[in-house]
């Protein structure tokens, strides 16, 4: 996991990289509706909207009615940074290029692989060594079906994370209460972070894409106070005394 290999005399090296990227799949071309929905999301998880790069996917749309420039402005005004467009007609491709955006061909297979979309594969180089700034504190019970995330820094939950709920952070996840749902730390690939909780009963634990399911967890650790971190590429769960 040494990161120093590419520091040679050349001015730069091209590297293939798989960076986690948010795809905004549009169901409507109407900028007003998109803006209204973004405003709602912004109030729910402000941490996510920090000039987050997004790919606008127009595959589901009849794109003749799409005003790409207007749409980009709407995204930017909500602190989302459109970097590329996926799918659409030749016209969309040309206007994307004219706006300085990249263009990707439409995605062929569309199985839903939600887990992988949020947890990068284990062998990935960290996207950025994000400083533990930002972060987020959530007070209360995270309920089934809810997702609480910190796009930067650590997430602190003061309360329970119930079964069917999901908490994610770029940094570590700290839970001052029982963890019964899913917890994912280091979602951008940071391998030095961990998960800390008072009462372990997690459906899933993941640090930088290395995960364990409830089934894989040593039963003697259940309902105890633990920390979860990476040791030699293995997810290790240790009692916290």
């Amino acid at each position: 996991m040494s990161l120093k290999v590419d520091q040679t005399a050349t001015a730069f090296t091209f590297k293939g990289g798989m960076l986690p990227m948010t795809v905004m799949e549009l169901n409507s071309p109407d900028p007003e509706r998109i803006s209204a929905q973004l405003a709602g999301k912004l109030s729910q998880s402000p941490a996510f909207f920090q000039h987050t790069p997004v790919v606008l996917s127009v595959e589901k749309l009849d794109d003749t009615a799409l005003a790409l420039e207007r749409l980009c402005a709407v995204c930017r005004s909500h602190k989302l940074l459109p970097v590329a467009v996926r799918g659409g007609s030749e016209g969309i491709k040309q206007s994307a290029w004219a706006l300085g955006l990249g263009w990707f061909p439409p995605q062929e297979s569309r199985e839903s692989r939600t887990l992988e979309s949020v947890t990068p594969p284990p062998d990935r180089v960290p996207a950025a060594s994000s400083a533990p700034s930002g972060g987020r504190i959530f007070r209360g019970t995270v309920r089934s079906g809810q997702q609480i995330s910190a796009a930067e820094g650590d997430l602190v939950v003061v309360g329970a994370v119930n079964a069917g709920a999901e908490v994610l952070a770029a940094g570590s996840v700290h839970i001052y209460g029982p963890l019964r749902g899913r917890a994912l730390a280091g979602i951008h690939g940071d391998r030095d972070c961990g998960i800390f909780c008072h009462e372990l009963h997690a459906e899933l634990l993941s640090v930088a894409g290395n995960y364990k399911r409830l089934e894989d967890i040593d039963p003697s650790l259940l309902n105890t106070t633990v920390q979860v971190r990476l040791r030699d590429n293995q997810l290790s769960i240790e009692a916290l005394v």
Partner: protein
Amino acid sequence: MARIIVVTSGKGGVGKTTSAAAIATGLALKGNKTVVIDFDVGLRNLDLIMGCERRVVYDLVNVIQGEAGLNQAMIRDKRTDNLYILPASQTRDKDALTLEGVEQVLDKLSEDFDYIVCDSPAGIERGAQLAMYFADEAIVVTNPEVSSVRDSDRILGLLASKTRRAEQGQDPVVERLLITRYDPNRVDSGDMLNLEDIQEILAIKLIGLIPESEAVLRSSNSGVPVTHDQDSDAGQAYSDTVARLLGDEKPLRFHQLQKKSFLSRIFGGGRR
């Protein structure tokens, strides 16, 4: 201004309609002018539980679509003064309900009534969301089993985000837990979740506990809300629940294992 109470659960078959009917009846018996609305468009049941299925002419969808007035659609309960029922339509589906229409109906009812009890359909889709959207209070009905508890947890998440109070940043909807079909014997043998575990997971205030009781099915089938059956444990438990809803302190009953006498063990004395 009426208090709008939604009776909801996420999961089906846990006793939402039974509880809505029993609580509305209890509120009316205490002298509050109460209307209970069936939001389960397409799967209308409240009229059966309330025993007024033969008197339904117009329904909620007719009112929303302007085909009938509220007073034409509301059915006056024969047993209890101050109690009215607004039935759902059986021939339509949930898409026939609109947010504006529901708001108008609730606003109109608010002028006359003290309590509006909304009987939510199961699920978390449109029907359930419309039933909870305008609520001031929510009674989350939960059975002592894991799937019901998880679904209730999900509904509590929606109550905190998908209601008018949440969207407009007002005081949150008051959330209360009603545990139904509780059987202390099965809790004791480990078949059912116990009261403390449910409360720990859901982390909201308990408003009542209804024991598993033969009286509930009997009253459903006869169309008399179980609150009228004050000889039964379930009827008394619903009365306690209503009293707590109105602000009285009532000790919890029916949650502990009852010692059976030698004779009743032999003859299997059932719960009344």
